């Protein structure tokens, strides 16, 4: 059954995308480590770190696509799940510093020492163990999503209201994590990591592995997301998105369906955050900022929501653009980003991938009609066309 579940996921484009990701996971670190710096094929560490970051963002956008593109929940708080995953990883990395901190205190991270904390707060317990920390990366965002979703979906908060309260959630968390008394390092966040599983975080090999892990996890999550959306459950999901009341009247427990998807998506976001932190070397409350979550929505929209691959491409494109503009034309970066949002919503409502897919399907349908064959249904693949019209 599970094999069937996975096989169903591995259809056409997803196979190609997963293949590319796995290839990237091997080739990029190889080119970084094995080629001499002056070789034409050499990928500098800096570029690899950058690409690793994009892949984490891509995973975050994929997570959002799962709830927004397939379930109609526009979450403006996905950055919160991302950040929580990141904090779980960051706390593990902080504990790994041990007595190499500037004060040489074996138990307390530096920021606690100079704020005169005497002992480790309870919520830091256990995070020095890698398996426990990794479990927390999934559990903390998942639990928050579960509690939040359990309340919200049962009381049928939806549409704009849901978006606004997810925004309130991430905003409240941002304020909370900014507080120094919370024990998460306040606005400075967690930084100056030394090693992960005994390997130096800064070392070339560790970076390569982290990069490969990012690509690999993205591929894995893509398969899971694809399996979910292609299963029968996925069809119901799209039903919930397009006509929630009807699905409810058909006897489905809409709130449970939404809740499941929301929790899975939050866990994806948590994984993305956990991979992000060791690669960029810092996690702080700025990641909770509502503006960050809105940006994720934009990546998804640019790539094309409800396509799984679109958000990945959107996240990479927009962030590559950001890296370029903030270096080359710093003053114009916000004009470009703002213009992109407007242009995409006005001219590419389906996003890049959605538009291409739409054109592709239309041509295929045309061809099919012309050939007058028995006609494999062009609309079998999940499409987003109807959504906007339905609203």
């Amino acid at each position, binding site marked *: 059954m599970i094999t069937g579940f996975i096989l169903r996921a591995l259809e056409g484009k997803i196979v*190609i*995308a997963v293949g*590319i990701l796995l290839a*990237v996971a091997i080739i990029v670190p190889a080119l970084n480590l094995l080629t001499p710096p002056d070789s034409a094929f050499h*990928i*500098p*560490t*800096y*570029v690899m*770190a*950058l*690409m690793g970051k994009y892949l984490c963002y891509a995973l975050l956008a994929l997570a959002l696509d799962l709830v927004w593109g397939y379930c109609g929940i526009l979450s403006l708080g996905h950055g919160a799940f991302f950040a929580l995953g990141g904090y779980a990883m960051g706390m593990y990395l902080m504990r790994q510093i041990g*007595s*190499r*901190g*500037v*004060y*040489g*205190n*074996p138990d307390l991270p*530096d920021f606690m020492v*100079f*704020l*005169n904390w005497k002992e480790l707060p309870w919520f830091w317990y256990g995070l020095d163990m890698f398996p426990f920390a990794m479990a927390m990366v999934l559990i903390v965002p998942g639990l928050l999503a579960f509690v939040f979703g359990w309340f919200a979906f049962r009381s049928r908060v939806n549409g704009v209201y849901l978006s606004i309260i997810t925004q309130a959630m991430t905003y409240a968390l941002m*304020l909370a994590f*900014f507080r*120094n008394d919370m024990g998460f*390092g*306040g*606005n*400075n*966040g967690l*930084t*100056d990591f030394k090693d992960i599983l005994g390997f130096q975080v*800064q070392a070339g090999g560790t970076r390569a592995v982290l990069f490969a892990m990012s690509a690999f996890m993205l591929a894995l999550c893509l398969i899971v997301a694809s399996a979910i959306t292609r299963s029968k459950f996925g069809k119901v999901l799209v039903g919930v998105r397009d006509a929630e009341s009807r699905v409810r009247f058909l006897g489905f427990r809409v709130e449970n369906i939404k809740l499941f998807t929301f929790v899975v998506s939050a866990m994806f976001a948590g994984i993305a955050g956990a991979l*992000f932190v060791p690669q*960029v*070397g*810092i996690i*702080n409350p*700025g*990641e909770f900022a509502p503006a960050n979550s809105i940006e994720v929505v934009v990546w998804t929209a640019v790539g094309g929501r409800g396509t799984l*691959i679109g958000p*990945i*491409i959107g996240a*990479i494109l927009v962030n*590559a*653009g950001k*890296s*370029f503009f*903030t*270096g*080359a034309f*710093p*003053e114009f*970066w*916000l004009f470009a980003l703002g213009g992109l949002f407007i242009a995409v919503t006005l001219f590419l409502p389906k996003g*890049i*991938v959605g538009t*291409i897919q739409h054109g592709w399907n239309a041509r295929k349908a045309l061809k099919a009609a012309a050939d007058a064959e028995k006609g494999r249904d062009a609309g079998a693949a999940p499409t987003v066309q109807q959504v906007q019209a339905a609203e």
Partner: protein
Amino acid sequence: MSFKAKLGGALLAAALSTTAFHGAFAADDTIKIGVLHSLSGTMAISETTLKDAMLMLVEEQNKKGGVLGKKLEAVVVDPASDWPLFAEKARQLISQDKVAAVFGCWTSSSRKSVLPVFEELNSILFYPVQYEGEESSRNIFYTGAAPNQQAIPAVDYLAETEGVERWVLAGTDYVYPQTTNKILKAYLMSKGVAEEDIMINYTPFGHSDWQTIVSDIKKFGSAGKKTAVVSTINGDANVPFYKELGNQGIKAEDIPVVAFSVGEEELAGLDTAPLVGHLAAWNYFQSVDAPVNAEFIKTWHAYTKNDKRVTNDPMEAAYIGFNAWVKAVEAAGTTETDAVLDSIIGVSVPNLSGGTSTVMPNHHITKPVLIGEIQADGQFEVVQETAAVVGDEWSDYLPDSKDLISDWRKPMECGNFNVATGKCGGKGS
């Protein structure tokens, strides 16, 4: 049109965008320095000025013939007030653009974010803003004030000159105020101030409704002892704070407020007439009467083509840092990091208040502390100036750091040497 092409193209674009573009400017007869200040986002309000100041300093240096016979070239990037982006941009400046040194950062978060990058890639950062101390990196020079170069002299002034006996420590809830207030509280209590005469209050970033807190301060001040407010309130929240103070009729003669984050630039957004007499402690004020300062202001006005632009303390810190670097590079004869790190310690350069500042072995500098009172024209009038003070990275008033010192000269080369145990590495274990 396959997805393979798309995805590959995207990744390629990502790689190229950052390498190709910056590579294009590379030329052998220039020395590049990086400018890492936010030009957008919430910190742009403070940092943009520093970017302009750096560009001006580079231009002036080039007029004098550059450094080591080569022209300087500033590479400006925008980390957009986003802390992880600071680390990314720092990495870009060092490993792609091959800059010789970087001048930048404002918040402690941004400095903490780039610190591992500078240590890993062995480059140099000059950090020009006052900060909470408790840090000393081999690769960072702290040209802004440490708490003992700002907070403690200010409190001394209030206690001695104005006879203050009751203290409100009000700050924005982040690490700089928290640490500074911890230090101040320990310092005041060591001077015999009772715990009930100290009130500590924290507010969120960008706090704009100060009614409750100002009236609390008023109440706290009605205990019959002379009261003062020590403000570590962060930039943006200051304007509404001072407006509320003025409106509730708290005059500087009754309850003076001494601020560590309010300079000429922040006052530019305020009608300062009701604030006359409130204080600030810095190492430089635009109103300082010194020929070198007059010259600096003239150059600044000419460079910005705006004779209303004010100068401020972080600009002076950037000025000192830049000149110290130039002098160290010329002494070392190269811009290579290790050589510069060796030659810069002990370098003395003029500061803008008429004296000289020396780079100390702990990577902090010596500067005088100036206490100024706000004037109706938005400037400060210096009411006290101390002799040059050495920046103290490890505070003597925090239990865990009082035994630590930093000395980056050989043979010690340690940022957290413990004088009690005689070992490098904090408390030791």
